[in-house]
């Protein structure tokens, strides 16, 4: 909210005035009414590892975060550039492998990646689109500059919270919202549907599009039902699908119905027991072969996790330069690859200052935050790094931005990040804004919902 010199950034002035004018009881009343709205809508997620299948209301903060038109313009161009390059990269690595031959990205990083899928080699995907739905996490540094923290290219989630946050926000502060001139995001489901439709196999003019969910026990099940409903498409589980002669069908009371496009919210590993994990009951046997035969589009494509491996992340600026001949518009965070001797020694000596992350994990799991860690935790990570350096990266602990949040009737600053959602079909579409995630605990740098983080509405101003 404030610039480095401590003054309030101009776009926040009206908000601050409005909040200052509201009596405390009124603020509380609006907060309670918003909470109730989330509760009755059943907007929940599942926390793993605690009581099995505990459902929680997604914590929500009433104070919106604001992004100016200029800031957004840069973010939008930067993300478009990045996603375009990453898509080229996936196509190249699973195809000719030019970038590997030219030694811009080392082969062993690619082949040792947990999410590399050799089955994808030499396969043509519809419209050459590997990643149709992307959620990229950004941080805003003290300098005001936005940097990319990571790309989520497999099954990024959270977009339903972005949409419901906006709906609640409009009801809670209608006048304020109106006076600010906020760019709309509500057409996201329609854009997603158009994106999916544009990727349908040739000769299927009215494609049957479905959303594939792992089922009710998945943490993002609410989102799956929400998106399916908003798009008016069928929500299916693996057991609803069958394949025959390389065609995917869904089992309906009116017989088998052909499926043309699958918006997949199931990880690669669980998608097809014949090709990937044989013990998975979540997928559909024969799906991959139908995909290979070009009879069904599955998106995101298999093996896209290759490009969101945290070690690969370090190479993204080079990847952008290689394919597009441009400098990255949105910079990376400095990243140490621990396979390199010099970096590793530096990291091991400075574990108390750095953040260490396991490369294949997400959701804040497998992470060490140096300044907030204990000696024992650091020793554990040091051992793990020595044992398998490829599995970790390290980054400096960033001083990223905080945003005002409402606690009771107090406004306090908390760390936030931003996850815009990028759609890639016949063109790139990014709805203005995204999910701003909030570290609810004072001083915490972890914003993931699976780690108890919350969220707030993000306003991109006209």
């Amino acid at each position, binding site marked *: 909210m404030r610039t480095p010199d401590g003054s309030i950034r101009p776009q926040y002035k009206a908000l601050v005035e409005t909040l200052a004018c509201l009596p405390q009881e009124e603020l509380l009343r609006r907060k309670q009414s918003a909470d109730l709205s989330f509760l009755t809508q059943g907007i929940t997620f599942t926390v793993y590892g605690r009581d099995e299948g505990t459902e929680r209301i997604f914590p929500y903060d009433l104070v919106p975060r604001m992004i100016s038109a200029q800031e957004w313009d840069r973010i939008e161009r930067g993300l478009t550039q990045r996603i375009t390059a990453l898509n080229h990269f996936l196509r190249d690595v699973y195809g000719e492998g030019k970038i590997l031959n030219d030694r811009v990205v080392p082969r062993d990083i690619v082949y040792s990646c947990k999410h590399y899928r050799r089955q994808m080699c030499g396969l043509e995907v519809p419209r050459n689109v590997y990643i149709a739905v992307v959620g990229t996490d950004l941080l805003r540094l003290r300098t005001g500059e936005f940097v990319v923290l990571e790309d989520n290219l497999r099954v990024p989630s959270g977009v339903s919270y972005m949409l419901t946050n906006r709906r609640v926000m409009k009801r809670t502060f209608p006048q304020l919202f109106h006076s600010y001139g906020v760019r709309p995001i509500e057409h996201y489901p329609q854009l997603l549907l158009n994106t999916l439709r544009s990727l349908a196999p040739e000769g299927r003019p009215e494609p049957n599009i479905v959303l594939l969910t792992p*089922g009710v026990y998945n943490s993002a099940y609410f989102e799956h039902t929400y998106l399916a409903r908003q798009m008016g498409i069928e929500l299916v589980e693996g*057991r*609803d699908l069958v394949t025959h002669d390389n065609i995917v*069908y869904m089992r309906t*009371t009116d017989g088998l119905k052909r499926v043309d496009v699958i918006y997949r919210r199931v990880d690669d590993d669980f998608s097809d027991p014949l090709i990937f994990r044989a013990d998975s009951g979540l997928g559909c046997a024969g799906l991959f072969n139908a995909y290979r035969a070009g009879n069904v589009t599955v998106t995101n494509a298999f093996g896209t996790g290759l490009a969101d491996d945290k070690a690969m992340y370090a190479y993204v600026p080079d990847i952008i330069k290689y394919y597009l001949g441009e400098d990255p518009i949105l910079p990376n965070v400095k990243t140490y690859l621990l396979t390199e001797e010099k970096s590793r020694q530096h990291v091991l000596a400075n574990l108390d200052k750095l953040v260490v992350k396991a490369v294949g994990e997400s959701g804040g799991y497998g992470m060490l935050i140096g300044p907030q860690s204990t000696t024992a935790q650091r020793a554990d990570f040091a051992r793990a790094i020595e044992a398998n350096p490829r599995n970790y990266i390290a980054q400096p602990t960033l001083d990223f931005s905080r945003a005002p949040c409402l606690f009771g009737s107090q406004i306090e600053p908390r760390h936030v990040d931003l996850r815009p959602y990028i759609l890639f079909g016949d063109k790139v579409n990014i709805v203005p804004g995204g999910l701003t995630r909030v570290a609810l605990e004072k001083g915490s740098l972890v914003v993931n919902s699976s780690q108890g983080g919350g969220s707030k509405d993000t306003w991109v101003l006209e």
Partner: protein
Amino acid sequence: MLSRVADSLYWMSRYLERSENTVRQLDVTMSLLLDSSETSADTRWQRLLTSLGNPPGVEWTGDADGMTRALIFDPTNAASVTTCINAARENARQVREEISTEQWQRLNRLYHQMHSPHAQAQFRANMNDFLASIIDGIHLFKGVSDTTMIHGEGWQFIRLGRYLERAYATATLLEVYQESLLNLAEQEHSGYQYLEQVGLLRCCTSFEAYCQVYTADLSPDRILEFLLLNRDFPHALRYSIDGVRQSLDAIQRAGGRRPPDELLATAGKLHSMLRYTTINEILEGNPGAFLHSIREQCKQIHELIYRYYVQYSIQSALAV
């Protein structure tokens, strides 16, 4: 509609109908036990178990208290009210987006009522109230189902589950009762017999409805006629099978496939049998066998629903 979704809606509904039936029969049995009678408590409990389809693992050992708790709260008994309500809620949860919020909240409330830490104490303190509140919960659920849900295919599967379960349960009940009921006809009428007959009617919530049609003049033939062949009373077999047939027709109309000939024929035959058979024909023949055959036909309809709408083979579906 996805087969899985239809399956879940159908079972959600069957399980609730089943728990209602168990609660009602238990309530009637407990109330009959209060009166001294020629029928022993042993016979009554055994008869209750038989008319509930002899749930596996539940046996009458002379412990009335243990028996009622097994039938209501025992989570290991696959037929207990708790198990049925759990299963209904689980089925609903799997298709949360296909049912209305009101339905979900009603069912959820019922579930939490059964699992409340006070449930057993409430049951002990006032069994009648407790059982009545469970039935209230189920009735409310049915009410909101009918008033808040689109009467499309999903609703038809819910209705199908309700009436098929009810038809099967009523046929089972009558099969168990018919012998003693018809033997009564030859005996002197006594207050005990009156209570027995009222009990049977109350098991199907049909005592008042019976009185409207036949006055309070109870006779075994008429009771059997009413519960089997009345076309206007929702718990009568004929009415239930009418409901099954109507829903099957509606589901068939909603789809574009070749009609499920065997399924429609089986339901149609049962429907015609109940429509065109007179009570005298049934009584002159073998009423037990008649009821048994109704049960067999209900099972057959269930299997055909599965074979046609839910678990059909890929080959058969591709051949169409």
